[in-house]
């Protein structure tokens, strides 16, 4: 550690103004702060002292994602060997899954970070940490058989059009990972929807339909059991199948105070309320699916925990968070049931509410001002 610190201190002057590698200052700084907590402190005003800076916040989210990633790797292998009817050991499944999943993770990180570093260099500011999370989220919400060049194109689109044009991390309107997925969904629908893509190298004789696809077709008999769906032994996007592990991630995020409990809670409440309404309505098979099953299926839990709570794109006010979360949950189930063309409503629900989040905040703040003004009038009178 000491040696590394000394080395960094030694080469640091070369990256300062007037140094040999002045142009690479952002890159150097990114690595330095990645390795060590920065020693700069704010000198004016009162500030809360906290060991958590942006990088460590982001790393915490990545840690919360690790269980879903590891399970996803295993599940990709498990589903593959199940589909081709071979009985193989645990490690063979993991090995197969790793060969499928890790390249996607690497492509996502390399593309995204290359663009982030490029922009930081050309604009002369720090490299933003936000992509550490997005780069992990993108592979987890894609099917295992997605061509790698599509991952690269979608990541580039999400980072440039979804984030950098608005000014980089913290300024984006839409969640970058979901932007990447939405891009793929509309650009290459045959590679990210339907029943062919969710199991890696699926033989044609095997039905690879996800629970959502079956539900959309009205084949509710073909749905897997609740425990399979909840623990994630089902085909689906790489990281989202196991609601159980997603909830473990949620506990990590809540314990460290990174994820907003208000949003999380209200998303689930919204989803449950809408499913219950559909249960009472009961116009078709899909509407009759139990609420707990609706929550366990597809990317609902994953989206709720890792994407709806994204502090940049969600509502900022306390009351706004409840409204935002509730509508995300409600709309997700609504889209699922009413629009079979978009089997997974969670992505579109979150993106839609991302757009509305500032509006919700605006009215919450306005309402607050009005209430306090009225109180002031009363006190004066």
């Amino acid at each position, binding site marked *: 550690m000491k040696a590394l610190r000394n080395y960094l201190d030694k080469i640091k002057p070369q990256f300062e103004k007037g140094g040999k590698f002045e142009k690479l200052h952002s890159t150097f700084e990114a690595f330095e702060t990645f390795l060590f907590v920065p020693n700069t402190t704010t000198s004016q005003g009162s500030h809360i002292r906290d060991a958590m800076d942006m990088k460590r916040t982001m790393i915490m989210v990545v840690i919360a994602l690790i269980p879903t990633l590891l399970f996803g790797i295993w599940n990709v292998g498990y589903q593959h060997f199940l589909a081709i009817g071979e009985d193989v050991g645990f490690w063979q499944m993991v090995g197969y899954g790793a060969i499928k999943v890790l390249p996607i993770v690497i492509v996502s990180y390399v593309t995204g970070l290359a663009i982030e570093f490029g922009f930081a260099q050309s604009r002369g500011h720090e490299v933003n940490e936000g992509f550490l999370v997005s780069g992990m989220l993108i592979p987890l919400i894609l099917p295992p058989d997605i061509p790698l060049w599509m991952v690269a194109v979608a990541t580039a689109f999400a980072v440039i059009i979804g984030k950098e044009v608005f000014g980089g991390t913290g300024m984006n309107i839409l969640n970058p990972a979901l932007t990447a997925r939405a891009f793929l969904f509309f*650009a290459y*629908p045959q590679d990210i929807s339907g029943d062919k893509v969710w199991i890696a190298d699926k033989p044609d004789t095997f039905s690879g339909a996800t629970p959502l696809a079956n539900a959309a077709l009205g084949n509710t008999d073909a749905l897997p059991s609740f425990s399979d769906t909840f623990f994630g032994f089902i085909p689906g996007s790489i990281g989202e199948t196991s609601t159980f592990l997603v909830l473990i991630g949620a506990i990590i995020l809540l314990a460290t105070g990174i994820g907003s409990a208000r949003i999380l809670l209200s998303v689930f409440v919204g989803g449950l309320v809408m499913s219950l309404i559909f249960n009472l309505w009961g116009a078709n098979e899909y509407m009759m699916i139990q609420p707990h099953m609706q929550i366990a299926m597809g990317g609902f839990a994953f989206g709720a925990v890792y994407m709806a709570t994204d502090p940049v794109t969600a509502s900022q006010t306390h009351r706004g968070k409840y409204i935002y979360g509730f509508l995300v949950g409600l709309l997700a189930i609504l889209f699922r049931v009413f629009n079979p063309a978009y089997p997974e409503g969670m992505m579109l629900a979150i993106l839609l509410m991302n757009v509305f989040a500032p509006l919700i905040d605006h009215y919450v703040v306005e309402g607050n001002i009005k209430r306090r003004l009225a109180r002031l009038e009363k006190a004066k009178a």
Partner: protein
Amino acid sequence: MSDKKEREPLFSVKNRKLLSTPLNKENPITVQVLGICSALAITVKLEPSVVMALSVVAVMGVSNVVISVLRKAIPPRIRIIVQLTVIASLVVLVDEVLSAFMYDVSKQLSVFVGLIITNCIIMGRLEAFASSNKAWPSFLDGIGNAAGYGWILIVVGFFRELLGSGEVWGYPVMEWIGLYDIGYKDNGLMILPPMALIIVGVIIWIQRAKNRDLIEENQ
């Protein structure tokens, strides 16, 4: 002698500016943000984009001249109606020519030829320029603005056709290069209207990165 003195050369600096500023610094689409609807609707392929651009050039050049010639005869109170009548008759002409000689393209453009009438750029130039200037500068102004509108359309149409359908002017270039054999697929999002907005946005981005004085102040 005095007569000669007043006469400006046909392509004086001022007149050339009328032609060239709308191409870049006063571009109707990227700077004034007018005529966006048609830029979204008809730029899925390159051919209709080019035809649309040419139609607008024709309508705008001629209507500017007509209005400019009539500018002293038109009572100010009914000038908008007169302008609309002129534009509408020209658009009908263009529409008839297209359906006579380029039936397929005119089918693709469908209502959007008719909607040239409501293209804000044309009305805007008639109001702002032609109704108070001589015929020749008005003509140049009309052609310039229509060309400024047209080249954006053509660029957007080119990229949307190339990336969305893998073709340029109907020729399957992507297939010739052999990209499909190595796993390339056409981008379905390019065919959807939002992508036209995004491409226009990227053009605006590039343009403002080059001309920093075009960047608006934050309010």
